[in-house]
């Protein structure tokens, strides 16, 4: 790695792309070259810096200066003033409390474990990951610890799966470790399709090595030698960065036939998905990996004993696996000090909808929903009031404002018949209509139902018809009861969580927003619903 006097870290994510980050990057590089600073200053494209709502953001390290709303002209000024003359450009600095900003000062009350390196390192450089302590846990594990000891660390940490269900990771791994068949697999579920969720994409794009290290640790703990990352096909950059990271790790002997020169062999491959939400369900994902359409399997047997090709398989979400290196490196006690007693650690959320700053944040488990919206999301736009929040993606719960003090962790939400799900938090102000949002949720489920089992296939179709009637003012009291009894039947009878989870948004919307539903019964449609109905009317013949 070439040593530079200063690193300019430019956060490249969707927001930055739309704000014209390419122009800023080329202006930076041109200015650096023209002023002869190429040997001293390195311009690095990194993942999201974790600062939303500030246009193009870049950080000059080691000075700890963050700049926001940078234009190509500003880029030239920054190079001339800060990097050449050593005078930070005050007018462009992101306001922080500290004179020299550490990432924590900029990111507010976040606790970053999974995202610790995102926006700090170049995700295409394994050396930068190693410089942050990366692969230390894996190196220590394979040279000094027995596989059982690694498994024990994960068990004692209390880590729970971040894919939505919150199942204890250590217990899952134990079941694979003790399975009779010695041919075992580690599969990473990176088929992120939950509406409102893009955390796994930003982990893969911002710090792919963290996932690889977590997978290798999982492989060592359970006795697997093959890891597979199933990434949704639409995530081109995630696929490319993960493949590149694998090649780098193999070249250094960190992955491959002799991991850190030991007898432990572990190879990782990337497989692209092809567009099917149901493949986020673990058994559908395994079917897809075997070259079939992604139809969920009956459970039991579970993947821990009968997974890929019928062999014992660990299936974990990206965020879950990305927690593992730090657990092994710092120990279960360190991990348990974060979060709550029954849900240790942190959780990555995406905050979206009618908030001032949407984006990606990582906070400790148990953080109140109110803090997420008002402190990290910056609250609502001026003059707007909060109507409710859809927590957990399309398969999540509609929470009214009276539930704002709920703590975000698996158990607190379960107590209120809600779920943490994928960690998507969609904020609705008074301009949104809950009935209209529910209709969007139900259309999503109808489209993504795989069609294998009748409760889900027919249930989602009937639900869309009922909610459409509701939107058009052609429903009565019975319609709501019908919707609830259908989702209850789907929850009891559907084969997989896709059909089972439709109950959550329907039940919570009807229970938490009774007045809004009542206003739609029989009366003229509200403006929002009318607009949607008109748009759907136009496409009536092609409506899926």
């Amino acid at each position, binding site marked *: 790695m070439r040593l530079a006097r200063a690193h300019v870290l430019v956060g490249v*994510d*969707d927001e930055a792309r739309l704000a014209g980050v390419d122009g800023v990057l080329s202006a930076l590089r041109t200015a650096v070259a023209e002023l002869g600073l190429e040997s001293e200053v390195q311009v690095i494209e990194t993942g999201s810096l974790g600062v939303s709502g500030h246009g193009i953001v870049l950080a000059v390290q080691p000075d700890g200066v963050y700049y926001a709303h940078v234009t190509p002209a500003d880029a030239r000024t920054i190079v001339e003033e800060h990097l050449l003359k050593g005078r930070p450009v005050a007018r462009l600095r992101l306001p922080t409390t500290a004179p020299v900003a550490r990432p924590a000062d900029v990111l507010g009350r976040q606790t970053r474990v999974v995202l610790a390196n995102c926006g700090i390192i170049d995700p295409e450089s394994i050396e930068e990951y190693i410089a942050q302590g990366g692969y230390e846990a894996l190196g220590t594990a394979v040279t000094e610890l027995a596989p059982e000891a690694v498994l024990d660390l994960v068990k004692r940490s209390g880590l729970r799966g971040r894919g939505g269900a919150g199942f204890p990771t250590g217990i899952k791994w134990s079941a694979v470790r003790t399975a009779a068949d010695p041919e075992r697999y580690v599969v990473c579920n990176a088929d992120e*399709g939950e509406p409102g969720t893009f955390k796994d994409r930003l982990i893969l794009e911002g710090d792919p090595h963290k996932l690889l290290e977590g997978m290798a640790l999982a492989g060592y703990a359970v006795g697997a030698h093959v890891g597979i990352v199933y990434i949704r*096909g639409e995530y081109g950059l995630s696929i490319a960065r993960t493949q590149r990271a694998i090649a780098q790790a193999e070249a250094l002997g960190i992955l491959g036939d002799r991991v850190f020169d030991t007898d432990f062999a572990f190879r990782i491959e990337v497989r692209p998905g092809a567009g099917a939400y149901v493949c986020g369900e673990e058994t559908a994902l395994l079917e897809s990996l075997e070259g079939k359409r992604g139809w969920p399997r009956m459970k039991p047997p579970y993947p821990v004993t009968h997974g890929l090709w019928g062999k014992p398989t660990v299936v974990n979400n990206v965020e879950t696996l990305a927690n593992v290196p730090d657990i092994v490196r710092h120990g279960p006690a360190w991990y348990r000090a974060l979060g709550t007693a029954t849900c240790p650690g942190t959780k990555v959320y995406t905050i979206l909808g009618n908030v001032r700053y949407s984006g990606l944040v990582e906070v400790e488990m148990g953080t109140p929903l109110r803090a997420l919206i008002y402190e990290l999301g910056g609250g609502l736009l001026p003059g707007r009031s909060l109507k409710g929040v859809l927590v957990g993606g399309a398969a999540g719960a509609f929470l009214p404002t009276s539930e704002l003090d709920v703590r975000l962790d698996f158990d607190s939400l379960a107590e209120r018949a809600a779920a943490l799900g994928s960690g998507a938090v969609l904020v609705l102000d008074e301009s949104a209509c809950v009935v209209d949002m529910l209709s969007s949720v139900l259309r*999503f489920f109808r489209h993504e139902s795989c069609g294998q089992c009748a409760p889900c296939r027919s249930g989602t179709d009937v639900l869309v018809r009922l909610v459409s009637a509701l939107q058009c003012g052609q429903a009565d009291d019975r319609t709501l009861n019908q919707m609830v009894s259908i989702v209850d039947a789907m929850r009891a009878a559907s084969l997989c969580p896709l059909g089972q989870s439709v109950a959550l948004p329907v039940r919570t919307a009807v229970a938490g927003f009774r007045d809004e539903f009542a206003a739609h019964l029989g009366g003229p449609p509200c403006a929002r619903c009318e607009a949607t109905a008109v748009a759907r009317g136009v496409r009536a013949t092609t409506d899926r």
Partner: protein
Amino acid sequence: MTKEAIAAQHPRSPEALLALLHDLQLANAGHHLTEADLVLAAAHVGLPLSAVHDAATFYSMFSLRPRGRHIIRLCDSPNCHLAGAWSALDELRRLLGVDIGETTEDGAFTLELTSCLGACGVAPVMMVDDEVVGNLTPERVRETLVRYREGR
């Protein structure tokens, strides 16, 4: 590259099916899979043709019908809906003169709806080929179509 050469880059095993179908589809100007592609894929990975057909019709990224030079996939899920995806859809339909699932007469664009693209921070969002275009307004839709019509 011939289709046979494309296939040769993949293992002769069912697990290679999706990646192989992606590559075969990419090699066709119409962004679709032909019957010959399915036959070739079946023989290469050792699956019955029916199983390959099954997979090719299940996943939304594959198409058995020829599509336009550019594929527009507009996100239709709750976040984009909240942010006003319908006004973008209306503008797309008006400017392209096609409905969802159809291809323009000049073969330039196919309009599709899709579920979440994972770019919700800039909703409403569409993907044109592999480019994410977010913060959609009717104006932004117009500008994007002009840019693609003029060859980027």
